[in-house]
Structure formats: structure tokens, C-alpha cells
């Protein structure tokens, strides 16, 4: 690059200032959440709020655990189960289908792929009322399979894996494995799956976060006997909204797993979002 263009693309102090301000605005609600969660209830009415966290988190979270109406701990465990089950399943089935669409030849391949992309347009709301009735008929109301099974493979996942598989895996590699006498599934498992790992990781992260945060459907089909963590939060915030310290302690605990995932895998998540954008 010439020096002129370098200067053209050099960030000014004003740029840094604006970005720091944006970062602070991003972080502030998290920070506020941890302050309230770790202090006595009275602090909620202090303006401005105290600057540092306090030592009352144990007390506040104790009240959450004693609260039978919200069943928060149960919700937390359920969310771990549901999010892990959905994530593993989505990654596996999406990789399998993505591999088939990218690397195997079969009749109707293009039409089926187009159909999958088309299904992404259909909003959840359009299916939710009959789905609710169906689940009740099957005796799946207020059960975890009601929030797992319908989401075990997604159009987004299949499409994403297909895009990655078509560029990351060479046809020669697959032909060579065929000549060695590998069956199709063996090829998938020993040759394709290892190569798909980076994309599978990103898909897994996005799916985990999506499932952990999912609200409308769990809110409709689950109840306070088998909540997910988001349903617990909603129950807690609607019935105990005067005890903000308790609600915020629960909110903080529900947020920490996501923040941990983000701190560890943030770069991959950002990479996933940005690469997806260029390909789309």
C-alpha cells in the first residue's frame, strides 16, 4: 500500500473516541445487571447507582433458589439439556445433509436445496398454533422433547454446511476414498467430518446461543413445572418484579454461560457472522 492510501485508511482519535463510547454503551447494561445482582434491594432506587459491585449476590441468589414458582435451578438444568441436545443434533444432521448437497450427485439435488433455502422464509408464528395442539394430542405438552425435536435440524445449518463443504473439500479426496472402498457414510465420518470441523464449531456456537435464548415457543408450550431458563426468568420478572435484586441475580446467572461462550469463542462467532454475510 502506498503511504497516501495508508493515511486514507488510518483511524483518527475521533474514531477511537466514537468506538470507545459505543463499547461502553454495549457493556453498560451488563455492568448494571451485575451491580444490582450483587447488592441489597434498596440500591435499585439509588440514582446514580453505586459504581462497584457489592457482596450480596449469595443472599439474592438464595432467594431465587427458594422461589418455587419460578423453578429457576430446574430451568437452568433444562436449558443445558435442551441446548446441548439441539446443538449436537443440528451439527450432525446439518453436516450430513450439507455434505450430501455439496459433494454427492443425486436426482433432484438442486430443487431440494432450493426448497430448504425457501423454508427459511416461513416464520415460526405461522406454525405455532397447530403445533401447540399437536403437542397436546401427543402428550408432549410441558415436556422437553416439545422444545427439542422440532429443532433437531435447521435449514440455516444445512445451507451453511453445504456452503462450507463445497469450498473446503475437494472432489478428488472423496473419489480417492471411494476407490479405497469406503462406503458413503465412512467417507463422511472419516474424511468429510474432520474437514468440516471449523464450520461445525461456528454452527454449534450459534445454535447453542439461539436455543438458550429461545423464548416464544418454550413460553407457549412449557410451564412452571418444566421451564427453560428463559421461561423461569419471565415467570420471575412478572411475579416478583418488586424484588429486583432477586430477578437480577437470576438474570445474571442465566447470562453468564453465554458470556463465557462469548469470551472463549468470540473470535469464531465474529468470523462466522462475517463470513456468512459475504457468502449470502
Amino acid at each position, binding site marked *: 500500500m502506498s503511504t*497516501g492510501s495508508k493515511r486514507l485508511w488510518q483511524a483518527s482519535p475521533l474514531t477511537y473516541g466514537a468506538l470507545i463510547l459505543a463499547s461502553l454503551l454495549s457493556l453498560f447494561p451488563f455492568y448494571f445487571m451485575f451491580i444490582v445482582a450483587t447488592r441489597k434491594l434498596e440500591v435499585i432506587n439509588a440514582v446514580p447507582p453505586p459504581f462497584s459491585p457489592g457482596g450480596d449476590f449469595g443472599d439474592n441468589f438464595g432467594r431465587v433458589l427458594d422461589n418455587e414458582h419460578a423453578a429457576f435451578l430446574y430451568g437452568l438444568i433444562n436449558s443445558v439439556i435442551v441446548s446441548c441436545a439441539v446443538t449436537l443434533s443440528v451439527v450432525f444432521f446439518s453436516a450430513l445433509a450439507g455434505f450430501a448437497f455439496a459433494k454427492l450427485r443425486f436426482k433432484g439435488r438442486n430443487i431440494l436445496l432450493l426448497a430448504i433455502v425457501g423454508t427459511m422464509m416461513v416464520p415460526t408464528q405461522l406454525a405455532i398454533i397447530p403445533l401447540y395442539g399437536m403437542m397436546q394430542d401427543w402428550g408432549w405438552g410441558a415436556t422437553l422433547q416439545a422444545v427439542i425435536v422440532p429443532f433437531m435440524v435447521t435449514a440455516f445449518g444445512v445451507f451453511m454446511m453445504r456452503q462450507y463443504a463445497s469450498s473446503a473439500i475437494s472432489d478428488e479426496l472423496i473419489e480417492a476414498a471411494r476407490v479405497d472402498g469406503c462406503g458413503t457414510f465412512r467417507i463422511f465420518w472419516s474424511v468429510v467430518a474432520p474437514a468440516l470441523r471449523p464450520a461445525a464449531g461456528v454452527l454449534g456456537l450459534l445454535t447453542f446461543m439461539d436455543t438458550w435464548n429461545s423464548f416464544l415457543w418454550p413460553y407457549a408450550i412449557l410451564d412452571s413445572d418444566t421451564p427453560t*431458563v428463559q421461561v423461569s426468568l419471565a415467570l420471575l420478572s412478572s411475579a416478583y418484579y418488586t424484588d429486583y435484586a432477586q430477578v437480577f441475580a437470576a438474570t445474571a446467572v442465566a447470562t453468564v454461560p453465554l458470556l463465557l461462550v462469548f469470551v472463549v469463542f468470540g473470535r469464531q462467532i465474529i468470523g462466522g457472522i462475517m463470513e456468512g454475510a459475504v457468502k449470502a
Partner: protein
Amino acid sequence: MSLSAPPAPPQLVKPDTHRAPSSRRFRLSRWDIKYSPYIYVAPFFILFAVFGIYPVLQTARMALYDWNLIGDHTFTGLDNFTALMGDEYFWNAVKNTFGIFLLATVPQLLGALFLANLLNQNMRGRMFFRLMIVAPNVTSVAAVAIVFAVLFRRDFGLVNWVLGFFGVDAIDWKGQTWSSWTAIATMVDWRWTGYNTLILLAAMQAIPKDIYESASLDGAGKWRQFWSITMPQLRPTLIFVVTVSTIGGLQLFTEPVIFGDGRILGGAQREFQTIAMYMYEKGFNDLQFGYGSAIAWALFIMIILVSGVNYLLIRRSVK
């Protein structure tokens, strides 16, 4: 173990057993090549048929019935839709949804364009800033809504406290239409501006730098370059971002529900009840499946129409 080895087969059969496995393997591998792709893509289509197509068709059917959870289902043709057209609560929900959508989307896109433009430079800590900006997107909507509902309280709310420095009297955010829309739009923007920034940034980085270099040799300033080079190149991405925002924005549900303390009416006078909330109220609270299904279809049709209009507008205005 080896004691129970099978007796050696008679001589005569041997050539057969020798050939059979290889031809079976051959048949097996032909079968494998021909049909296993279908098995691999089948899980998606089976799940989508059961939990996607079937319920969507059922929604279409229910919308034509007077269909309650308990009792008979009577075919009523388009009565549900006729009733919907004259339902003031429905139109109120439409007004709220579009109001919040516009109030959220316009600043969000401008903010994302601005931030992406800032990030598309040589700087220190670029990964740090990207992480900071997209962090709100990984939090749960319910958590965001709970925190913001407290920030937007009338008494002791932090937002009112800050506004107080500018001489603004305490606003009852939940109590009025405009104020509640603003509060909810703020939650949406806090969560989604960073995400859209990254998408626009990715598209900006794909634009070849030498276009800018020759433009700046020709004396085009930064502002001019932004309008004549960046914006046109971003067109497909803008269409993508606006479409995704439209689909998400018109389905808005969680933020207003939790902002209203978990109640589905969205404020005492339904100041911020969205279409999705009204569908929930009719379908799941009142158990009027037929009427709820009609609302679901109305919402879907609106999403398609608005996405189409957006597409045409952006295609025409950004050349």
C-alpha cells in the same frame, strides 16, 4: 472361542461363497451411492414436513373455521378475516408493530453503517472493538428486556435521571404509546446494531481498495467516496440486512412482553401490544385457534409485502 469354529463348507459350495460377498458388496455399494444421499437429507425434510408444512397448512385451514380448543369446529369461510379487518385491537397491534419497527430499524441501520465505516480502517484493537460491539447480541432477549425495563422506570429509572440533566421531566415510559415504543426500540437496537455492523463491515472489506485510491486521486473526499463507492457496493448486503430486520421486527414478541411485566396485553391500554402478542392472546390465552390462525396469516402476508417493498426501494434508491 475358536473351539466352536464352523465346520469347513463342502468343496462344491466354495466357489459360490467366494463370489457371493463381492457381488453383494458391489450391489451394496451401488445402492449406497444411489440412495444414501436421500437418507442424509431426509432428516430435514421429515422434520420440516411434520413440524413445518403440516402445521402451516393446518393454520391455513383453521383460519377458515370457528375453531376453539373445546367444542365443535364450524367452517365459516373468510369470517375470521372479515372480523379481523374490523377488529380495532388488531389494527392497534399493527400500528404498534410498525411504529416500533420503524423507530428501531432506521436508527439501527444508520448506526450500523456509521460504526462499520469507523471499523473499516487501520487501527489498534480492531478485534476488541468488534467483540464489544457484538456482545449485546449474545445475551438472551429476556435478560435484556428485564434490565431495560428497570432502566426505563418512571421513578428512579436511570434514563429519566440522565434526561433530567437536559431539563426533561420524568417520562412514564410504560404509560404512553410513543414513550413505550421508544423504550422497546432502544432494546432492539442495543441488541442488533452490533450484529448488523459486522455484516456491513464484512461487505465493506470485500470492496477492492484501489477503487478508493483512484477516487481519492481524482479528488473525491471521504463523504463523496462513501456515497459513490461504498453505498452502491453494499446494495446486496443492505437488502439482506433490511430483509432480516423486517422479518424479525414484524415478529417482535419477547421485548414488549417482558417490558410489560410478562403480560400479553402490552400496557394498560395496549400501548405496545404487537401483532405476535395479539396472536398469542387470541390463540393461547383465549384458545380461539381459528381467529389466532387468521392473525398468523395476516402477519405472514404483511412480512412478505414489506420485504418486497423494501427490496424495490433499496434497489431503486441505491444505484
